[in-house]
């Protein structure tokens, strides 16, 4: 059995993994950069080790340092979370060689799925539908032109080593093709050190739907149904829900079968996600596999009643899957909103900084996976995700209403967040009707970014409150004698803690 786990991550996912460890009586070891001494994962862990300066390459991406801590702390296993080293085949292999259990798939699975063109070819061999396009590297411009004509425009040029939208170009007109191929190549070279590209047909009105899978070391694999992730901004998911409003039972079963087949095609072990592009007619195509836990895994946990981190750990120690496909059901509806430290009114500019005050929504159907706290200063070195608000409801309508009331009660001051923006998504008629594609945010930009005005009375209340605050402070200053014992003031502060009647 595993007695101690090193969590090679930070932020909400590190804390989330440690929570499940604690429920399993497994001790958790945190690693942290110099920017993260006060981060919640350091406070929550049983042990914590500093692994270097703030930039990720010098800390959270530094395999040698993490392995050194793992050995020093005597851990049995490493959980990589998502991001950072989670899809790094070298890291998975290094753990293997050092005799440390890597809570995730084999280097082979990671590497095969990590190279998009290899993954594509593997899927074709296994009979899983892929987007019409090349399964070969584009060698020259003649190839590109011929293939684009065969597929019919528009087409998508993609980098084989790609991810996150880099090295990707959408081409509508043949005249633009050559320039797009060159641009994609040079961007891929710069981003991944590899200029291999390929061409796929562009799917109109695309929906991004993914299937959660679990596979054990004995060859058993199941899927835990879909997650609808089409609400995206710049290829980053913003809102996810399950079940998908687009889905029907027949297609769900079929896609589930294909997802399991995809995992088996790479001898997958652990928790993973098969991403599909689906069109309005429910034709679906393999997009890629994420060989790790997803950010949005909690919505699956809510409707399927499972703790995916516990399942990962049980699979990692060689236990057979305890869940049976035929016993799994989707119960109710779950939605996740990603709360980010970004300013929607200012082109989503990042907004790191000090959290002055925070009120979290509570009550029935609310789950909150976060890591920040009042007084915490969000560093500018890492990504802007500060928490995930997850709601569960008996049906989609209740879940949306619950999310709206939760977002309304969720207050974070000191930094800018995407909370209001998410509220407007929940109030959008197309979203409420479940009629949306990956273009949703772009198509509704104006409504989603519109700032409502308060009425005059509400504005006046804002003026009055600021004014009274100002007067109160002013009065305090003039009243407080300069010679008052500082110890008394401190005591008063301790007692009243900033609370005062006006």
């Amino acid at each position: 059995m595993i007695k101690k786990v090193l969590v090679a991550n930070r932020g909400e996912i590190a804390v989330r993994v440690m929570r499940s460890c604690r429920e399993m009586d497994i001790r958790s070891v945190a690693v942290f950069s110099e920017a993260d001494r006060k981060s919640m994962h350091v406070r929550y862990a049983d042990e914590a080790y500093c692994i270097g300066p703030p930039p990720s390459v010098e800390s959270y991406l530094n395999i040698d340092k993490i392995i050194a801590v793992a050995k020093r702390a005597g851990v049995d296993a490493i959980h990589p979370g998502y991001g950072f080293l989670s899809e790094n085949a070298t890291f998975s292999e290094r753990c293997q060689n050092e005799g440390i259990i890597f809570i995730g798939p084999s280097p082979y699975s990671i590497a095969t799925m990590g190279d998009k063109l290899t993954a594509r070819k593997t899927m074709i061999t296994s009979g899983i539908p892929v987007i019409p396009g090349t399964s070969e590297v584009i060698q020259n411009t003649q190839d590109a032109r011929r293939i684009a004509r065969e597929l019919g425009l528009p087409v998508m040029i993609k980098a084989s080593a790609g991810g996150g939208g880099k090295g990707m170009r959408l081409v509508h007109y043949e005249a633009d093709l050559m320039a797009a191929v060159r641009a994609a190549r040079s961007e891929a070279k710069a981003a991944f050190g590899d200029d291999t590209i390929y061409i796929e047909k562009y799917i109109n009105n695309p929906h991004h739907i993914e299937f959660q899978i679990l596979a054990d070391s004995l060859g058993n694999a199941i899927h835990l149904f879909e997650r609808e992730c089409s609400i995206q901004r710049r290829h980053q998911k913003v809102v996810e829900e399950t079940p998908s409003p687009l889905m029907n039972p027949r297609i769900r079963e079929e896609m589930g079968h294909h997802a399991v087949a995809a995992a088996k095609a790479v001898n997958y072990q652990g928790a993973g996600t098969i991403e599909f592009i689906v069109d309005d007619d429910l034709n679906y195509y393999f997009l890629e596999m994420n060989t790790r836990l997803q950010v949005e895994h909690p919505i699956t946990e809510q409707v399927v009643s499972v703790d995916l981190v516990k399942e990962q750990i049980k699979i990692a120690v060689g236990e057979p899957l305890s869940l049976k496909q035929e016993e799994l059901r989707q119960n109710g509806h779950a939605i996740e909103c990603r709360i980010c430290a970004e300013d929607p009114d200012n082109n989503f500019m990042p907004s790191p900084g000090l959290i002055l005050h925070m009120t979290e929504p509570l009550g029935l159907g609310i789950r909150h996976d976060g890591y920040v706290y009042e007084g915490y200063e969000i560093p500018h070195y890492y990504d802007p995700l500060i928490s995930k608000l997850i709601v569960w409801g008996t049906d989609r309508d209740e879940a949306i209403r619950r999310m709206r009331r939760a977002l309304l009660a969720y207050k974070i001051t000191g930094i800018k967040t995407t909370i209001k923006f998410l509220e407007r998504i929940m109030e959008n008629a197309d979203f409420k009707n479940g009629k949306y594609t990956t273009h949703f945010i772009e198509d509704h930009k104006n409504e989603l970014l519109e700032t409502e005005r308060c009425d005059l009375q509400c504005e006046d209340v804002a003026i009055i409150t600021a004014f009274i605050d100002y007067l109160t402070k002013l009065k305090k200053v003039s009243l407080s004698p300069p010679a008052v014992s500082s110890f008394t003031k401190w005591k008063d502060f301790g007692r009243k803690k900033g609370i005062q009647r006006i």
Partner: protein
Amino acid sequence: MPYEVNLGKRSATVELIYQEGNQIKIAVDDKIYELDLVMVEEGIYSILLNNRSYNLELIRNGVGRKYTVNTYLRSYDVEIVDAETKYLRSREKSQFGEAGNRIFSPMPGKVVSIPVKVGFRVKPGQTLIIVSAMKMESEFKAKKDGVVKDILVKEGATVDGNQTLILLE
């Protein structure tokens, strides 16, 4: 004594008429309000006005008497214009010249590059400095014609939010 209070671009005249505990009577322009106002947490106010329950968050900002006030629907910049505000405004102007001459990033981050040098003539929209934060790069541009007077940071440096990075003239 009536005060001038600005909310966004609106300027209002505000005068406190009466205050006893939470109970406040106050004039805003030509309207008179009676309300029950209490700070419930640091910077969080609960207001009852004609029994309607309002919750406001107040963030006190840097220099002067500036607030960000978050209401139910949106966020406002509110400023109480008192003698010190007026003094600070004139000082700020004498220090930095006109608004727009001071280039800064609203958020902390790392300077990725500075594609200008001291003495360069710049045009509106021209990128002066690129700052990276949270895996995203933001470009800060000139708002008008000018000359780079001073560059106060180096490439690779970590900077604070609101720190002056470049001065134009």
